[in-house]
Each structure stands twice: as C-alpha cells, then as structure tokens.
C-alpha cells in the first residue's frame, strides 16, 4: 500500500472512530444539561475558598511547622497540603468548564453567532486545558505559585458574575416568550 492510500485508509479509520465517539452515550449530553440547570451551584464556587487554601499553603506556616515539629510530620503536612492544592486546582477547572459550557449555551440560543468569536473561545478553552495540565504537573512536583493562582481565581469569579447575570436575563426572557406564545395559542382569549 503506497503512502496516499495509507493516508486515505488512516483518514477513514479516524472518521469511523470520530463517528463512534460523536454518536455515543446520549446520557452524557443530558447530564451536561442537568449540570447546567443546577444554577444555584454557581453561587457556591470553589474560588470562594481561595483564602483558606492560601492559608493552608502559606510559607510562614510551613517554616513555623518545620522549626517546631518532627521531620516526618513536616513531610506529611507538606504532602497533605499539596493534595489540597491539587484538589483545589481541579475544582477551579470544574468551575471554569461549567462557565465555559454556559457560554456555549448562550451562543446556541443566539440567532446570530460570530464564527470568529466562537473559534477564539474554542482555542482559548483548549489552551486553558493544556496549561492547566502543565500547572497541575508543577503542583505535583512541588511548586505552588499561589499569588498567580489568586489572580486566576479573580478572573473566574468575575466571569461567573457576568454569566450569572446573563443567565438570569435569559431566564426572564424565556419566561416572557413562553407567556407570549401561550397567549398566541389561546388566540387572544386570555387577554383582558
């Protein structure tokens, strides 16, 4: 088999795999909607716990503990703190993904969607995922860049507030539209 044929064969196999992936598990989509619908969850963002996490990972605390406690205990505490940092980062990512999904839903409801903006968001999302993995690895290896993590949390938080306002706005408009549609179905009989 020559190279072009091999490429065509590979491309066809890739298409089949993509098809299987894209058509699988419809429950996952439903789950996504359930997650999105759980709007009150947005109020309990993980970014709210940043001060506690910062405290838990503070260098002063570590130094104090190292001067007073045994080496084994210091190691154990450091290990536990790293676990906390990793868990926090994972939760932060969860928040980000939730908001990102919400942004996609807003786009899906819009009568006109800007291709450039959507592509940019997709690109940003992919970049976020990649960088997140890199930072997670850094945490895992023992680095803890907390001041920057603070800024990161602020950005997620600001984004969250804007999107929550938009969701509320959309909800009100949906209710209004449903009311209007119901009035039209009744052919004006329900008007005073």
């Amino acid at each position, binding site marked *: 088999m020559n190279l072009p044929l091999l490429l065509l064969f590979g491309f066809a196999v890739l*298409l089949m795999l993509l098809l299987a992936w894209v058509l699988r598990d419809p429950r996952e989509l439903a789950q996504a909607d359930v997650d999105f619908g759980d709007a009150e969850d947005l109020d309990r963002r993980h970014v709210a716990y940043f001060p506690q996490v910062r405290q838990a990972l503070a260098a002063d605390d570590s130094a104090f503990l190292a001067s007073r406690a045994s080496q084994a205990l210091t190691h154990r505490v450091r290990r536990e703190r790293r676990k906390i940092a990793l868990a926090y980062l994972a939760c932060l990512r969860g928040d980000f993904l939730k908001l990102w999904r919400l942004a996609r839903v807003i786009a899906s409801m819009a009568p006109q969607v800007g291709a450039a903006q959507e592509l940019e968001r997709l690109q940003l999302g992919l970049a976020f995922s990649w960088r997140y993995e890199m930072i997670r690895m850094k945490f895992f290896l023992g680095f803890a860049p907390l001041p920057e993590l603070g800024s990161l949390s602020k950005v997620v938080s600001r984004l969250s507030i804007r999107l929550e306002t938009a969701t509320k706005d959309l909800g009100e408009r949906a209710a209004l539209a449903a009311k209007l549609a119901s009035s039209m179905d009744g052919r004006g009989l329900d008007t005073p």
Partner: protein
Amino acid sequence: MPLYILVLWACSALLQLITLILLLANGSFRKLPFFTVYAALNLCQVAFLVFVYSTWGIDSKPGKVLAWYSECVTLIAQALATTEILKVTLRPYQGIWGLAWRALAFTSALVVLIVALATYGDWGTAGWFELNRGYHLTFAAAVIACLLLFRYYSVQVSAAYKRILGGFCLYSCTEILINTVLQSLAKKWFDAYQPIWQSSTMLSFIVVLFIWVSALWKPLPIEARQAAPPADSIYQRLSPEINERLRELNEKLLRLWKLEARPQ
C-alpha cells in the same frame, strides 16, 4: 453474476422498499421530503440497473458507465437529504445553523483539496472509482464536523435523526475503506476483485438500511417549538467579554507556566 450477489441485491431492494413504505406510512415524508426522494431514487436505481445489466451485461462498458451515472444521481440526492436533516435539527438554533453550513462548506473544500492532492497523477486511470471515494470522504468528513458541532453546543438531536445521519456516515466510511483496501490489493486486476467489491459494498448498505428501518419504525419526533427568545443582544454583549476574560485567564496560566511566579 454470482448467486450470493443476487441474494444481497434482493435483500437490499427489499429493505429499501421497507424504508420507503415506512416513510410514507408514518407521514415522515412530510418532514423529510428529500430523504424520501432519496429512498425512492435508490429503488429506481435498482430497477434501472436490472434493466441496464440485462440489456448490456454487467461487464460491458455502457453498462458500467450508466451504472456510475445512476450512482451520481443518488449521491446528489444523499447530500441533499443529509443537508435537510441537519437543517431540520438545527431549526431552533439559527446561529448554530449559520455556523454549521460554513463548517460544512469549509470542511468539504478542505477534504476535496486533500483528496485531489492525494490522488494527483492518478486522475486519468482512477476515474469513477476515485470520484466515488472522494465524494464519500468529503461527505463523511462534513457530516462528522457537523455532529461534532452538535456535541460541542450540546444540541439535542433526536435518536431517529442521529441514526439516519450515522447510517449515511457509516456507509461512506465503509465505502472509503473498501475502495482503498481493494485498490491497494488489486490495482491492475480489479475485475478479479469485482464480486468482493460488490458484495462488501452491498453488505454495508444493507447494515445501513437496517439502521434506517429501526430509526423510521416509529414516526419521527415532533419538533420542539422554539420557545427561547432571541438572545442576540445578550450574545453580542457577552461573547467578546467572555472571550476577553478567558484570554486573560490563559495569560495568567501562561505566566505560571513560564515560572514568573516563584515557588512558595
């Protein structure tokens, strides 16, 4: 023609007939007129091929050329039927439909270019065979791009439409695989492999017909009325802002990666 190919042909014709009857009996032809025309054209093609092969013979040149011409007609109908299903699915999502048709056009153009480059120099000899494969490659890539878009935007596609689209894609993918494998095996002795090619393509089409029959067994779902209000202003207002925030977030992450922040 070997008996097993005739049997496969009969099975395929029967399933095509069932598909058409289901479309007409369920009233689904009103929702999917192009798909109904496609199903009817498939049956007409069977009758046409019976006439052509019995008149000129299966190995004759006019027989082959006429068979390929009839295939062109059904392939065009297939493209129209698929576009129709995509449009029906995306009717409540006007913005996404605008994006989807652009994705379709872009993906199709890109794949046509790739196919043209991959087969460059072979065009004279390959002829119909390459055209057929190129079409299926373009078709499958474009439909999968749209399905990916559906998934990205969490667009709810009814199981019946999903099965019909999946069937189209599956058929195209198997056609590409069969054509590619057989071309590599039998570059010069294609005639020897013709029964294998015929039986394998027919078999894959029979599988697809089973999928379509299962999809059309019940009437197609009633489309959800678009209760959502136009949220254009919200999108126009929020989208750039969200992107800006996301960009900002990525910059922060980039700084972290570049070790601008010192470890604690």
